[in-house]
């Protein structure tokens, strides 16, 4: 019987290696896998590249990973969100590298990898500082930059419900990056509020199909 549920958050993040690229879902404080991030801190992997929209808040989750020196690089669109002092400190100390990407380019590059494609041309950032160094091409009279697929070794996902196959649903705007990141990593790990029986989720409304999910751990939260 397929059962992707693991018992502990430590089991969920077991095996993450030093140097991994970790996709961290969420937008602001919503839909962020904070408990998995803390588990990853416990797990101890170092030299991580983090792909996220923001750069962590306060002293928990991603911010804690950064404060502890586990993060070598952050790929994000907007580090300056909320109390991002942990990131700011490391940034000023030059102890981590920042790669700034337009927000839509982050998710589209991950989808590109998920879809088995080799890259795409986008008009976003063409002719700007963020497009510098990228291959350019004029298509239909408009300048485009070439964007490569972006792959995670691990994706840390926050969902509401899961079943034992790993089908997922989300709550409202907590969906955000989760479905895209879930598709784009070799190992997709999910913290959920609750497990439901197989077949209990409406097949028309499952947002992340089980094929993208490897491990699920229940962390409670909103029922």
């Amino acid at each position, binding site marked *: 019987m397929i059962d992707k549920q693991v018992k502990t958050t430590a089991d969920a993040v077991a095996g993450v290696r030093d140097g991994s690229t970790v996709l961290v879902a969420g*937008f*602001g*404080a*919503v839909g962020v896998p904070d408990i998995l991030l803390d588990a990853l801190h416990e797990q101890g992997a170092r030299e991580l590249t983090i792909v996220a929209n923001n*750069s962590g808040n306060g002293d928990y989750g991603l911010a804690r990973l950064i404060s502890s020196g586990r993060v070598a690089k952050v790929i994000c*669109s*907007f*580090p*300056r*969100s*909320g109390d991002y002092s942990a*990131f*700011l400190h490391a*940034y*000023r100390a030059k102890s981590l590298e*920042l790669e*700034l*990407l*337009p*927000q*839509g*380019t982050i*998710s*589209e590059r*991950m*989808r590109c990898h998920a879809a088995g494609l080799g890259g795409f041309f*986008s*008009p*976003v*950032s063409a*002719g*700007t*500082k*963020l497009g510098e160094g990228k291959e350019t091409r004029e298509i239909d009279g408009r300048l485009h930059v070439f964007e490569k697929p972006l792959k995670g070794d691990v994706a840390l996902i926050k969902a509401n419900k899961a079943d034992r196959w790993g089908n997922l649903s*989300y*709550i*409202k*705007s*907590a*969906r*955000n*990056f*989760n*479905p*895209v990141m879930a598709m784009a990593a070799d190992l997709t790990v999910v913290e959920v509020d609750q497990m439901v029986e197989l077949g209990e989720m409406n097949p028309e409304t499952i*947002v992340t199909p089980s094929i993208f999910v490897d491990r699920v751990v229940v962390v409670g939260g*909103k029922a």
Partner: protein
Amino acid sequence: MTSQSHEPLNREQMAWRAAQDLKEGDYVNLGIGIPTLAASYVPPGREVIFHSENGILGMGPKPEPGKEDPYMVDAGKNLTTLVAGGCFVHHADAFLMIRGGHLDVSLLGAFEVSASGDLANWTTEDPAFPPGVGGAMDLAVGARAIRVIMEHTSKKGEPRILKACTYPLTAANCVKRIYTNLAVIDVTPKGLVVLEMIPGMTLEKLQALTEPPLQLAPDWKVLAPPVAPKARAA
């Protein structure tokens, strides 16, 4: 016309003015800051559908006290609501809508706009802080109409509508209309055309605060929002 001041518009009045141009059935993204305020000033009875980059189509007003939902945030990470007919999409689909030309209007804040519609609104290159771009570049290339709301001049009184932007560009040749605290200006192939000015303003005075040459539209109007625009009920 109700009683008018000759003062520059305040933030609410600028947002009110931009909101009047949103048409029934428009799909609109509002940037962080003054643009966000525009949602409150859409004329009563007019249905405009707001998009939020994090994956909401059909975003409503701020929640009433006691009805806050922590799972409902907007692009600025503030609490928001969903209207009937609204729905949720994942992030790549939210930006497909932005980049793919599905939005009728993208209303953005700006540091500077050039005579040819170049937009600079993402970084002032302050070395003390990391840069942040968010969805600015996506929003500046995708919508059918890119409109900007900004103060006409900097705090020092320097023009912010320039021959060429001094800050790094967000996108070139994208802005079609500028709402300032002094005027409404269209970016056209023939140059900047002033559509509206606040009471007491003249083209000469406005030109002195604007780097590239301005033309006055033959049918220009007085820019006269209500003194205290009335926000739409939630």
